[in-house]
């Protein structure tokens, strides 16, 4: 007993001297009002406020205004952030952060269940709050993620998570917010072993696949009408919310025709709220999307154009082109979990190719919030919303000046340390470099 106590003390001592291997603790709830003063406040709601004041208490924003905005200073922790910039915490939709640790190591991957139709599978359950990746993503200003399973046709249900918490129950912001459907491809890719080339051809099996899908939605509709179903079908149970609007249907589709077909399908099946994810070729269906009031979450725009003939910068300017057409556009980093920390720079690149910086910021804040249905709580810096925000030394969307100095999730002060910073520190000490 004594011996182990000694070891424990020793470990603590060593821990202080060097570093812990584990992630730091989850943040403690906001205990007193906090005021940030002197910064440029990018509210993503109204105009940028120079030299502004933002105050929040019990996790909620109580004041936002220009210098001199009055607030009760007693008991308030005022942090002088003069010359710095305040942004809403960035939101990363359709993401696998927390489900995947090391892509190539199967044991650390919890993103895809067996089977083509899995509406009942819940990403929330596997969301690992102890992932070593989460702090590195948070450190660049991304504070909210939509943890999303991947799969064949219906991959499962996503949930919206704060990037802080002891466990998934703590971290969840919105549980089981929607079902994810990968639309049946209009084209399919084939590899020809004779010519060593791949071709994109029409998918001949499409109609059959859509018929099967139609049957599923019809069955789900019928099931939803039964008051006390016996037996209970967990798949159809999971789809209920699609028809009363409590859940969104997120459809991954890239090609113009797929998008039109998928949206029309969903509407004809009585789905109340549809979101398109991906949308690489959504420009072809932009008017349709606007007229049908369907938003698009454009996926990782740091990609190559799909066609040789496309404008070289087409992916970079796609959000702007869609916005110009009147489509509600969000922005996501799909697929590369660790790369989510570059979400601000996706938006920055969009701004470099025609969109205003303010609108580009909205892509990854208020627009994503609106599209995910969480704009009541987060996505902009407005009184009454949650205090989920970031303070950066400079422009958060530009790696040349971005440096996150403070982050708050629901008013909780986030420890911005992460494994990579610890390793940096450890080896800087080894070499005596600064």
């Amino acid at each position, binding site marked *: 007993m004594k011996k182990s106590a000694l070891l424990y003390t020793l470990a603590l001592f060593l821990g202080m001297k060097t570093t812990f291997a584990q992630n730091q603790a989850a943040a403690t709830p906001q205990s007193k009002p906090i005021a940030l003063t002197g910064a440029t406040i990018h509210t993503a709601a109204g105009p940028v406020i120079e030299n502004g004041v933002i105050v929040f208490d019990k996790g909620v924003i109580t004041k936002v205004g220009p210098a001199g905005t009055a607030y009760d200073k007693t008991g308030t922790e005022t942090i002088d952030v003069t010359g710095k910039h305040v942004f809403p915490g960035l939101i990363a939709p359709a993401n696998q952060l927390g489900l995947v640790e090391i*892509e190539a190591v199967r044991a650390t991957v919890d993103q895809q269940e067996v089977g083509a139709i899995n509406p009942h599978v819940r990403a929330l359950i596997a969301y690992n709050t102890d992932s070593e990746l989460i702090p590195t993503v948070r450190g660049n200003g991304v504070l909210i993620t939509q943890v999303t399973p991947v799969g064949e046709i219906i991959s499962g249900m996503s949930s919206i998570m704060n990037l802080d918490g002891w466990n998934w129950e703590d971290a969840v912001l919105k549980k089981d917010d929607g079902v994810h459907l990968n639309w049946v491809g209009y084209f399919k890719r084939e590899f020809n072993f004779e010519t060593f080339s791949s071709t994109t051809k029409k998918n001949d099996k499409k109609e059959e696949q859509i018929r099967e899908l139609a049957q599923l939605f019809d069955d789900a509709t019928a099931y939803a009408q039964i008051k006390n179903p016996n037996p209970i079908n967990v798949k159809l149970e999971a789809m209920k919310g699609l028809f009363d609007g409590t859940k969104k249907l997120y459809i991954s589709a890239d090609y113009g025709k797929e998008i039109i077909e998928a949206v029309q399908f969903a509407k004809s099946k009585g789905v109340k709220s549809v979101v398109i994810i991906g949308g690489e070729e959504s420009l072809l269906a932009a008017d349709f999307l606007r007229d049908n009031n369907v938003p698009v979450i454009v996926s990782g725009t740091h990609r190559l154009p799909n*066609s040789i003939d496309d404008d070289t*910068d087409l992916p970079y300017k796609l959000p702007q082109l869609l916005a110009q057409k009147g489509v509600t556009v969000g922005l996501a980093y799909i697929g590369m979990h660790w790369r989510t920390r570059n979400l601000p720079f996706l938006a920055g690149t969009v701004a470099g190719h025609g969109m205003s910086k303010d609108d580009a910021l909205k892509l990854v804040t208020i627009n994503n919030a609106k599209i995910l249905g969480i704009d009541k709580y987060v996505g902009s810096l407005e009184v009454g919303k949650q205090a989920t925000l970031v303070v950066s030394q400079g422009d958060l969307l530009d790696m040349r000046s971005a*440096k996150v100095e403070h982050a708050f999730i629901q008013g909780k002060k986030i420890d911005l340390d992460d494994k990579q910073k610890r390793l940096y520190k450890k080896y*800087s000490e080894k070499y005596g470099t600064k």
Partner: protein
Amino acid sequence: MKKILYTFINIIMFGTVLRAQTTTFPRNGVQDERPNTYAFVNATIVSDANTVLEGATLVIKGSVIEAVGKNITLPAGTQVIDLKGKRIYPSLVEAYSSYGMPELKREGRSFRGDPQFESKKQGAYNWNQAVLPEVNAAAIYASNPTAADELRKAGFGAAITHVQDGIVRGTSALVALIDGRDQEALLKTNVSANYSLSKGSSTQDYPNSLMGSVALLRQTYLDADWYKKSKNHTEYNISLESFNNSQSVPQVFEVSDKLGILRANKIGKEFGVNYIIKGGGDEYQRLDEVKAAGVSLIIPLNFPTTPDVEDPFDAGVVSLSDMKHWEMAPANPAILAKAGIPFAITTSNVRSKSDFWANLRKAVEYGLDEKVALAALTSVPAQFNKVDNLVGSLKPGMLANFLITSDNLFKESNVIYENWVKGKRYVVNNMNITDMRASYDLSVAGKSGLKLNVTGKVDKPEFQIQVSDSVKVSPKVTRTGDLLTLSFKLDAKKDKGDTRISAYYDGKNIKGDGFDAAGTPVKFDAIFKEAFKEAVAKADTTKKPVPTIGKIVYPFNGYGAETKPKAETLLIKNATVWTNEKDGILKNTDVLLKDGKIAQVGKNLSATGAKVVDGTGKHLTNGIFDEHSHIALLSVNEGSQSVTAEVRMEDVVNSEDVNIYRQLAGGVTSSQLLHGSANCIGGQSAIVKLKWGEAPEVMKIQNADGYIKFALGENVKQANWGDRARIRFPQTRMGVEQIMMDAFLRAKEYDKAWAEYNKAANKATLTPPRRDLELDALSEILNKKRFITCHSYVQSEINMLLKVADSLGFKVNTFTHILEGYKVADKMKAHGASGSTFADWWAYKMEVKEAIPFNAALMTKVGINTSINSDDAEMARRLNQEAAKTVMYGGLTEEEAWKLVTLNPAKMMHLDNRLGSIKAGKDADVVLWNENPLSVYAKPEKTIIEGAVYFDIEKDKELRANIAAERNRLIQKMLNSKASGAPTARPEMRKPRLFVCNSLGGLTEEEGETRAFGTLQLQDNCDK
């Protein structure tokens, strides 16, 4: 029944005649030699493409031509055939064929199966299953009557044929397209030696890349030479012996596209061989280079089918280059002819032989001179293959291979009547068919006053019974010689069934008997009334205008240009100049570019004749140098063996890759195109400038030091390749060390062996050591002539290679990726290694678990020459952003950050004397940015290489508009083509080969390539 029997007897008798001529064979019955002398008189004889004799005579005796000309005395016993109004041509020669060769069986190469390291071919042959010089087409030729008939109908009389399988394919044979004994058909053996870079049916792993194929071919040349010089053979190698024996005949190389021509020609030049190259039909797309190569070509007429572009969304998948090729491919032969490039035409790659003629006429319509076309199908293939004493023209002593045609061979209405091959008559269309066409007075079943009109073509007459002025009936007619079977209803309403007649033509009238619907016998009498008047053919003299086609652009896609960029004298005024020199970042500074070099840097410069570029508010920097790139390559990994130092990426540079242009738009001007990381010692790098529009050879940086890719860790030990990849050594980092040690120990011994040989006094009596391209490359490393870029991740393996290098006395020039470089930075510094890393990549595999984005900054601070690279076609166009991340992670100064993608990689590549900073005398490789290049908002406005503007944001706008306009023009043309009845194909997109390192998606391009090439498996990411 009787008729069938008769035909049967006919065949037997004909067969007997044939056999009688093969003199070594025993005879069943009596000798049956026939006179076999024929004279074809009154013909228009096209004896070769340039010689036409009107009213001339051709005399043949047996299988040989006796005489061609006028006033020829015919020997007694000559059978005379009058060809008045008809023409004689030499039968065509198929230049590139596998006629009569066994059908190739492609054994399914199992994906994720066990590796096959050695050949499965049994016997004393080459170690590699794709090197088959011993294959002798003559020895395995067996006639194929169906294929021969098809070729004869298309006008061919002889074919040069070989087994189209493997990289070294053995020798071809010249065969006559006759049925009967193979001994007669075979005309000449050992006609040409054949090559390709496709391993064909070989199931062996090596080579599984294009550059591996090139390396294997090179090594085969060297091995054969060594074998020849060997005094004491340690092995008897039939393949190498055959290879040596086949070097004196014409050497023919099959490639699939225009770049393949340049590649094959380059290989040929290395070994003093001028290949005749069988191309892919897109030669016009690199016309200048193909012409400069000075090669002879064999070209196919494989014109693309019209893509169906009716649906505007679907049309989006068809690229402008495919559209342009659809438009221009038919002009390829004409363009080559105009450029003076000698070529033969082959039927290969064309779907059917009838398509061949349609396409040949189309080529003529698109401007190919008929004489050139005829030569390309007769004398040229004969000369290429040195068989012009046998076939290809009509001269005494040559084989009696000729065509009898109704007209000019190239005319659409022309009919090939007969194709005589080796003096044997093959009737394609009966030229002696009776002309029944006329107008007749007809009486049927006692009904008179009717008319029978026979019109149409001689061989395809059309029959019509005119019952009255308003009632016309078309009877169903079957014709057998002069016998006719007719069935008809004279009154469609009343007649309950057909009246059936069996009739004959007596030279003037048509008479017959039969029954009507009721079974009553009826008579059919058609009495000649009036001769048939052929509609006068439309004036054919007005030649159709040659269709207008688009322009050739370099390279052949929407972002190509008609003229390649040229160096200009440019004066950039008043810019913020990032010099990367002691001066640092200079504001309001001018830079003069002249003759491809930076001429002057300073204030208020002026230069006569210079084009002034206003740089106010803009930033001028060096072009970005990407130390680790896989764009512009046709293949990346030769992953079949653990050491493949012999492969060269410069053999597979793809100058047509649109990513070159896209990266210019991101400010990249130079790249090291690296081999992948599938094995411990990979291939030699291609170090290029992104000279968009130029051919691969021009892109290469001249006199750059050679580099080679090494790799360590998970990829080379196949950690993520699935459970079946457990056979290739090494499977652990322990094994990697041993592979490295062993490779260099062998290289040292090799060096020693050569040194001893070279200084030996009695050299002439010694067998030289065997040249080994793999050991050559390793020896170059030991001798500081080649430098290592090593893919590496974790500290233990980095440390290992440093120790291996130190113990054997070589240097590791660069560690690439080097994500744990920060852990051993002190050791790297002591060794003098550089580090080329990612800005922030991690967590994609186990060995990058401890990667940190501070790596570049930390290595820099320790004093290592550090760079940031892309390893990714997309990220490369944002390397400025990646460099900027080192300001955020680790706090480098902006100048330091910028050097990570410019000066530092130039130093790593030993090119900092020419590249990497803005200083008078260095190459004018610069980029003008709209703002600070490290900003996420920065965009290049001009990207300049050696003073030539390769990307210009204003020009780019024009190109985009032009792409849209050209697409629209071609889509309209395709729609018209479809409307006029051309067959169409569903639009499909051929994906440009991309070697992005996406570790998530399904089958990556590289994986696909590996599956296609062999049994070896690859990880699902190409390099990272």
